[in-house]
């Protein structure tokens, strides 16, 4: 088993966080995992993306040249990663913020208006978790319970109260992939 995914957005959107949570979920399921972030000087804004690889074998390079799946949160990332997705792969993109339209016919596209969906849930901050849910629902790379456990481990003590809302967001995303 080998799963390769890129999460990309601008700094502050939480693209790196969901990558870390996925890597943690993988480790919880006894898989090998690598998470490789790339970001600029800025705390907010600027490009922020990460490569996440999950495998039951030893992982060679942690760098993904052509991802099976790209999870895209903003316009600039759409333009950057759309041409790189592997033929037959998939792209999830945030239609709340992205106005670009798909240009390829050899990959599958999933529209996820995650900022609007997060508002429906009452908290804009879980937009990234909706996208992660969509990826996990699509790829079945790990179980949703493992994602929740990974998130708990990442957030640490004192943030447990946010778990039910995050879980809801994950499930909402997974429902899109199931359509």
């Amino acid at each position, binding site marked *: 088993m080998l799963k390769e995914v890129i999460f990309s957005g601008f700094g502050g959107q939480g693209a790196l966080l969901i990558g*870390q949570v996925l*890597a*943690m979920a993988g*480790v919880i399921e006894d898989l*090998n*995992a*690598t*998470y*490789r*972030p*790339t970001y*600029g*000087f800025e705390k907010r804004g600027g490009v922020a993306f990460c490569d996440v690889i999950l495998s039951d074998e030893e*992982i*060679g*390079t*942690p*760098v993904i*040249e052509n991802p099976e799946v790209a999870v895209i949160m903003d316009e600039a990332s759409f333009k950057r990663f759309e041409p790189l997705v592997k033929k037959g792969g998939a792209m999830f993109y945030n239609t709340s913020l992205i106005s670009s339209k798909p240009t390829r016919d050899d990959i599958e596209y999933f529209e996820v208006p995650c900022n609007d969906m997060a508002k429906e849930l009452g908290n804009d901050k879980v937009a990234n978790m909706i996208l992660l849910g969509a990826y996990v629902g699509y790829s079945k790379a790990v179980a949703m319970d493992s994602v929740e456990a990974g998130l708990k481990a990442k957030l640490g003590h004192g943030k447990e109260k946010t778990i039910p809302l995050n879980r809801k967001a994950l499930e909402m995303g997974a429902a899109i992939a199931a359509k």
Partner: protein
Amino acid sequence: MKKLMKGNEAIAEAAIQAGCKCYFGYPITPQNEVPEYMSWRLREMGGVFKQAESEVASVNMVYGAGAAGVRAMTSSSGLGIALMQEGITNLASTQVPAVFLNVMRGGPGLGTIQASQADYNQMTRGGGNGDYYLPTYAPSTLQEACDLIQKAFDTAFKYRTPVGVMVDATIGNMMESVDIKENVQPDPSIPDVNEWCIRGGRREDGSVHRIKGLFNVPEECEAFNEELAKKYDKIRENEVMVDIKDCEGADVVIVAYGTTARIAKQTMKLGKENGLKIGMVRPQTVWPFPYDELREACRDAKGVLCAEMAIDQLLQDVKLALEGTKPIATYHRLSGVMPSANDMYDACVKLAKEAK
């Protein structure tokens, strides 16, 4: 126990588990998680953490701790390591052990904050004055980075020398599962620090504790240099580390270290799928460099591809090793633009064709 950790934090924890008691440093991306982790963890472990006012101050604090026989380290990126060179040559001349971690970013000057291997010359050729060398480890995975920083402390104390560990920013920033060896005991062959360290006052036999690097008489300084040279010869003889894969009967051998070597593994896989035999020589120590091992491993190769995130730095040592016996091609990406396994494969194909 295996744990998913960020590279910089894993390396810091591994250092502490190898007995590092003092950390002095000054912030710089992409290694800031090292001091951040050290700041709470060392205190928890009864050590000392100090954020110095500059890199020059950090290296001199490390000098002081090392001279007292304590396991101490600092970390920085190439820019900061540049500022520390005066201290490093002084540590070498006074034979004070310490560990220097360089998490490399793009250069020259301020460059970028992303991954690079352009400090190869800085670490292997040094920037300080005089006839000294900095034994330097170049790990490729997080696990190896943890294992080798632990070994670096032993090497530093075994030979009484500053020792470097260099990783590109990818290794510092990425997360991967690691199993950090806990409570690692010093190699039993390491001499007792009380034989040389300064602790104030006189020794029991009345002699003065002294660490010095200044000579008034040229002949004395020359003799000291010859002694140092013998030490470096011993290190060359005993401490070379290299990982050699699939080189027997290989069409092309890739020479690479660090993250570039991990990417080269993918290139080797592409070779297997497409019928081109690709081997790899991966130096784990870049000083001392595995010259003999490299030459021997490349015996069957039609050509050798030197791959690095720098322009022709590793290449100098590859040339020294091969002594003109094989055609050499190069492949590089720089300043945070990652090498591509596919492009590296194309370079191998081209080399194999041309070398026929």
